[in-house]
């Protein structure tokens, strides 16, 4: 009985690290990877697998998450969470070395506020361009109307 209890205690002590090794901020982590950088807000690791295998792992692991968006960029695949998960993005590198680098970043206000400010400025830019276009088209039209009126007056 004592041995059994000691085994259970040992198991309980060992279990949390092994569970934690499977995820970072609730984002799934591929087992057997080599950790390159790890702090509270960022995990970088590499795995001896190709990009497609890693992507397939994440597609499968996140298939039940509603607000996930996967974007294919030139050098990496970018997975973004638009919901309430504690992580913001998972970046999977593309390459032909047989080793893939994965970066998991914590959800952060810098991104939210940054994108909001940029988009607010974007609204100004759209309307500013419209303003410029209207000024140009307005002046062209008023000139052409002026010329036509001058012609009429002359004749």
């Amino acid at each position, binding site marked *: 009985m004592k041995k059994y209890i000691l085994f259970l205690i040992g198991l309980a002590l060992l279990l949390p690290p092994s569970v934690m090794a499977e995820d970072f901020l609730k984002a799934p982590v591929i087992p057997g990877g080599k950790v390159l950088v790890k702090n509270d807000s960022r995990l970088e690791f590499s795995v001896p697998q190709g990009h497609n295998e890693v992507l397939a792992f994440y597609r499968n692991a996140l298939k039940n998450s509603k*607000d996930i968006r996967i974007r294919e960029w030139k050098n990496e695949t970018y997975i973004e969470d638009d919901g309430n998960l504690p992580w913001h993005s998972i970046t999977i590198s593309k390459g032909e070395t047989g080793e893939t680098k994965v970066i998991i970043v914590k959800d952060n206000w810098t991104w939210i506020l940054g994108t909001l400010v940029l988009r607010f400025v974007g609204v100004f830019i759209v309307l*500013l361009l*419209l303003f410029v276009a*209207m000024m140009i088209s307005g002046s062209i039209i008023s000139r052409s109307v002026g010329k036509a009126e001058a012609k009429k007056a002359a004749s």
Partner: protein
Amino acid sequence: MTFNEIMDLLNGIMRTTGVFNFDPKVIVMWAIASLFIYLAIAKKYEPLLLLPIGFGIFIVNFPLVPMMGYEHGRPQLLQFFYHYGLEWEIIPCVIFLGLGAMTDFGPLIANPKTLLIGAGAQLGVFITFTGTVLAGFTLKEAASVGIIGGADGPTTVYLTTLLAPQLLGANALAAYSYMAMVPLIQPPIMRMMTSKEERTIRMRQLRPVSKREKMLFPMVTAGIIALLVPSVIPLMGMFMLGNLMKESGAVGRLTETAQGSLMNIVTIFLGVSVGATMYADKFLSWKPLFIFGLGLVDFAVCTIGGILTVKIMNLFLKEKINPLIGSAGVSAVPMAARVSQMEGLKADNTNHLLMHAMGPNLAGVIGSAAAAGMFIAMFH
């Protein structure tokens, strides 16, 4: 037939009625529906929308009514309107077509500077987004709640249907309610944000705008929006098509239909479908209440944003703009412009600001659509 058989038969019949499936929660929804119907009929607050919305809420909140579900895989009546009208994003775009056919962009073309006021008045949209995320909403939900401050009903419905359809009822109701309450919400903010001297600023009479300019405007605007914010072109494209139809004068019959019968038909479908999304089970939670609260703040910040933009512009302009027209930068056409006119007259009873305020008012429609486009681009 034995007595027991008769009782079983009666029991079976009774169970097909709503009485035996009654849920007390629906009483709250009846009260909400009655409130909106009352506001529409007695107070004339956005009656064209609040009345069908109110009735939509009322009618779906009865047990067993075959209105918003599916039967043998086929949508029931209101589900049919909702699915093809809203989920397929048709109704908001058709409403924009009608709005375009009713709009005169002359004041905006005559004073294009006011476009910037329409952009500044989107401040609340982005600030509310942050507040909504802090409250635990997802980013998509936050975007759909934020756009309420733009005070543009079809844009709110369009964006919410795309990003957070579960909030459609609350968002649409908040947007249309606050649009109706512009004369109550804006004046105190306008007086607080401006000095007596600023309120009496006189603006030069707007120049006449030629027909050619008016015809060119929808083409230029549609082109620029399509290039910069293509995601919102279904709305803005239809808006500009309606306007081109009107300004060209070549398709009188089509213009008449777009601004009349067609607009009225889709307004009925829009109102009743939006109302029908509000079941007691879904609606009675903290989220709609929170949306209503935050929508008010959103609206106030958008008003402040518009006025602040005018004040900043005045630092650089020789001919000053009356900051009272800044509040019209939220859409709510033409109510917000009328509020600017009324407040202007209170400060100086010979200073008419209505036509000047129509510029930012119309710019607000374009601005809120641009803001919606920014959000759509963020998530799609």
